[in-house]
Every structure is written in C-alpha cells, then in structure tokens.
C-alpha cells in the first residue's frame, strides 16, 4: 500500500489552526489569575513565622499548624456547616420560587408585566450597603439576628432577581407547544410543566442553581453584620480568625483553602452541566 501517499487527500478536514500566540495569551491569563491564589494556598501550609516573613519564601517544609488552629482551636467547621446549610437552603428556595415567577413572566401576558420584570432587575442593581441598616433593624425586631433562618430568608430574597432573570430568558426559548401538546395528550397544566418543561429546562436550572449557590456561599457583607456567633458563615469567620491586630497569613491561607475547596470540587464535577446549561438556547437555532 505504498501508493497511499499519492492518493488525493480528502478535503473534508481543514488543517487545524496552530497559532502559537493564542497559547501565549492563554498562559498569561492563567498566570495572572492563578498565581495569587497559588501563593495564598502555599501560605496556608506554612507555619506562622515563614508566612509572615518580609521576603516571599517559595520553598518551605509544609506544616498543618494553621489548619490545626482553625479547626480545633477556633472550630471553623461549625462555620463551614452554617455556610453549607445557608447556601443550600437559599439556593433551593430562590430557584424554586424564582422558577415559577420566571415561568409566569415568560408565558403569560398580563398588565404591567414589563414593569415587574424591570423592577426585579433593579433590585439586583441596588448596592447592599444601601439597605444594610434597615435590614439590620428589621432582623433585630423580628429576632432573626444571628440565626440561620434569617440568613436563608435574606439570601433567598437577594438571589431571586438573578434567578428570575436567568430563567425567564430560558423559558422564553422553550416553545409553548411542548406544554400544549402534553395538555392535549391529557395532562393537567402542572403535570405538563413537571414532566415536559422542567426536564427540558433541567440544564439551565442546574446552571442557575450553581451560580446562586456560589453567590450565597461567598456572600460577605450581610453575613458580617447580621451574625455574630451561632450563625456565622465562612466569609466573616475567615476575617475574624485571621485578621486581628496583625494579619496571620498562614491562617488566612488555610481558611482560603477550606472555603474554596468545595467550590472547586463542585464546579469540576458539574462543569458539563454548567456549560450545557449556559449555552442552552444560544447554540441551538
């Protein structure tokens, strides 16, 4: 079969583009994004003296001193647990409620519909600081200060606009035909919604939920002001434990590892759903 080389080449596969500069740009972006994080993570495995030395040290013998301090002395796993409960619960409630709201906005034409959706969006634009004091007072009156329930309610309310805006667009992309078809086939409206629309929407809802969960997980400002002990979540806890009279860099690093590890695992596991959910309606015609 030595004649193979003389056979005409199939034109179906165009030559792959190999632009070296694309990789240069990509590497540059990765370094800029990743280096600070790497440095902080390294600090987490140093002992106190190494981490706070004036000149950066790149080679050191690892120690778990900071983790030991956070987990056993300060009991940061309680804060970790609080964060898990608050972000899971607020994600569940905001996505569930927001889903129905988005469905209504996408499907039904009622007076003031555009006003409602615009109002929902403006809620998102408002800086949290503007409402910090009123919310504090409200929480104080209602006895919600330093409770997980209070944070769950607040985060649910905060994330709702985002959920509604994301999902309204996705619901609009799903033709009404699917539900109508199911209804003619003998389903009630809700059964049609549950069995037909939701499965089609699943990737988009998953992607939205992931975003919402990350936002709740990372929320700092309200958590700092509205919790002190019992309900303190990870972000304010990290600050409280690592920054006192001086900054304990190794404690900060260890805390960063603890707070980002679940997120990294989570996104790595779900990246397929995340990408397919976000691109739904974009890729398809």
């Amino acid at each position: 079969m030595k004649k193979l080389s003389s056979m005409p080449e199939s034109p179906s596969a165009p030559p792959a583009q190999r632009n070296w500069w694309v990789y240069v740009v990509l590497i540059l972006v990765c370094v800029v994004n990743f280096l600070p994080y790497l440095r902080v993570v390294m600090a987490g495995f140093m002992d106190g003296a190494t981490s706070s030395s004036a000149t950066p040290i790149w080679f050191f013998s690892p120690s778990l001193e900071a983790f030991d301090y956070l987990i056993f002395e300060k009991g940061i796993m309680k804060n970790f647990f609080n964060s898990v409960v608050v972000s899971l619960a607020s994600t569940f409630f905001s996505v569930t409620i927001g889903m129905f709201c988005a469905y209504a906005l996408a499907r039904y034409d009622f007076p003031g519909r555009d006003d409602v959706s615009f109002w929902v969006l403006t809620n998102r634009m408002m800086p949290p600081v503007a409402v910090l004091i009123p919310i504090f007072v409200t929480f104080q009156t209602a006895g919600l200060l330093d409770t997980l329930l209070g944070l769950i309610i607040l985060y649910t309310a905060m994330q709702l606009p985002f959920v509604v805006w994301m999902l309204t667009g996705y619901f609009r992309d799903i033709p009404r035909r699917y539900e109508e078809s199911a209804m003619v086939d003998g389903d009630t409206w809700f059964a049609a919604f549950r069995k037909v629309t939701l499965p089609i929407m699943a990737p988009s809802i998953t992607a939205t939920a992931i975003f919402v969960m990350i936002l709740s997980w990372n929320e700092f400002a309200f958590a700092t002001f509205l919790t002190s002990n019992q309900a303190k979540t990870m972000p304010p806890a990290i600050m409280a434990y690592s920054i006192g009279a001086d900054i304990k860099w190794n404690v900060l690093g260890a805390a960063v590892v603890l707070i980002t590890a679940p997120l990294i695992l989570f996104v790595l596991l779900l990246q397929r759903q995340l990408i397919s959910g976000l691109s739904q309606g974009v890729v398809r015609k």
Partner: protein
Amino acid sequence: MAELEINSLMKQFGAFQAVNDVNITVNNGEFVFLLGPSGCGKTTTLRMIAGLEMPSSGRIAIGGRNVTFLRPRHRNVGMVFQDYGLYRHLTVFGNIAYPLEVRRLQRAEIARKVSAVARTMQITEVLQRKPDQLSAGQLQRVAIARMLVRDADVFLMDEPMSHLDAQLRGQMRAELRHIQKSVGVTTIFVTHDQLEAMTMADRIIVMKDGEMLQFATPREIFERPATEFVATFVGEPQMNVFDVRITRIQGKIAAMTEDFVIPLDARWMQENGVENLVGQGVRLGVRPEHISVSDRAEGGHGVAAELYSFEPTGAENLYVLKCGGVTITTRSSTTETAHLAKGEGSRLYAGFDPNWIYLFEPGSGRTIAQAAASRSENEEM
C-alpha cells in the same frame, strides 16, 4: 370517533376579531380542511377545538357532548402541531407512549400499541432515538404516530407538512389520506396550501379574515366558488380575474374590456340573468386552463395578445399574455402548443371558453354567475 359541531364560534383578541361566526358540522370520519391565508383565523379555530384557546362565544360539540369551555384533557382530541411539539428529552418511543402513560395504561398494552402504530408509520427502527437525531420526515411521522396511538374522538392537524420538502410532501399527502380513511377518525387539518386541501380533503372550509367563505367539497370549491377570493385562492396558476362591462353589441350581449370583447353563452346568460347586468361593470373570471392560445385570429381566438412571458413546466406550458391593459395566464398541454411562438413579444390570439366563465360582484366579490359547465353537487344527485 365522533362528529364535530361548531355553532356561531367567535374569538376576539382585544379589539381584533380573529374568528367571526364560524358554523361547521363535520360528519363522523370526515377529513375536513381549514384553508386560508395566514392570519385568517384557521389556526385559532383549531386551537379552540383543541381547548388551547377559549372561545369568546359560541358552542363546540364533539360527539354531541358540549366541550366549548372544557380543558384540553377532557376533550379527547389528538393533535399534531406545526413544529411537531415532540419532547426532546424523551426517545421516540417515550414520545409516542406519552399520551398512553398519562392515561395509566398497562406497560404491556403501551408497548403493544406503540409498536403497532410505529409499524403503520414505518418508524420502527428509530423508536429508541431522540427527536434531534431524526430527519424532518421522520419527526413528522413520529408526531402523527403520537396522535394516532390514542383512541381520540377527533384528530387535529396544524400545518403538519409545512416543514417538509416538496417531494416528501407529495408522498405524505397520499399516505396521510390513506391512513385517515383506514383509521376513520374525524380529522380537521389546517393548511394554507390549496394543493394539500384539494388533494386530501373530503370537504374544505375556506376562511378569510376570521370568516368562513365556503364549506364544500374540493370539486365544488374549485368549480363553483362562492366568492372571487375562493376562486383565486384555489387553483394553480390562479384564476384570471379582470374588470369587464356587460354591453349589448349589435343586439348580442357580451363582456367588454377597453381592449377586447368576450362573447358569452346565450343559455348561460339567460339562466343567470346576465341581461339585467347590461351597462354594469363586473369582474370576469376564467381559469388558465380554459383559455386557449393560437397564432391565428380564427376559431374563437378573437383576442389579440402579446406574449409577455413563456413558462414551460414540462407537461404544460404557461403563456402569460398582455391583452391591452389586461394580463392573463393560460395553461395548455405542451404538445398542443408545440407549434406556437415562444419568444417574448410574439403576437398570439387568446380564446375564452364560454362554458367556463364566472362573474363576480365588484365590491363584495360574491359570485354572480357560476360557469355554465360547472355542476353543483346537488344537481348531480
């Protein structure tokens, strides 16, 4: 299986009257087409029968049962949507089985019914695929299978063939007509394609601007159109219609344009009272196949014309002629017109078959005189 009865059905969307006073009685097992241009209310009418849209007023009865304001699931109708409405998260099997699962049938029963209908629609090989792995023709077959699998009283089809290419559409027409007749379920089919309606229907409802213009068999619609709109909407190429004046020339009544005179049939004029129209302007209609073309001004080819455009379609030749200010299209077999000139601007003569001339009222478009050779269904019986 049931008959469908619709009485004075109305639907308003705000100030817009989408459907205005539709009255239909469809017999059991009949294949009825709703035909009209887009926005004429045919789809709205269908959706009201399905229960996806509630009427503003009127009554809809299926098999004698009043379903006017019932929810879709209480009506027992099957439907195929324009874009099929197949669930893309389910396999073809899941899609077809869906209406049965909703009715909580036994699993074995479902499998049996689905495979039976899949055999009818020739989609057995694709049952395990997802809808996005199917061709347009297969998608359509699946959608029809999903409708057929149920024991519905009425089948509704909303332009199911509009996404198919012309060749496939031709095949599906014959197949669908065959299936409808063998299943024997009353079927309402919405289309804007007059060819589909003419070839498949038992009876056609022609709609325009929300109103029913005519409800009759395809042949009756074609030969005895109720209005000028029906006459021009059905038939390809469409009927030639132009303004004429009924005039008495040398004691004989004829239709006259500014440029030529069309002699009329005496008996037909008498039957339709054309004498009373003398001096009036009317619209005269004649189908392309009832105009013959000649290169000599003799034997009834009295109208001098200039060839504007020549369109061969294979078996037939279309001549678009300019007769003074009037443009007419003619259609004749290729062999008959083989000897005629085909160059643009050629001098030709057109002859109008006096047996196939229609007269329409100028304002309302109502038919004043049906063609002499046309027969209404009642006369035949």
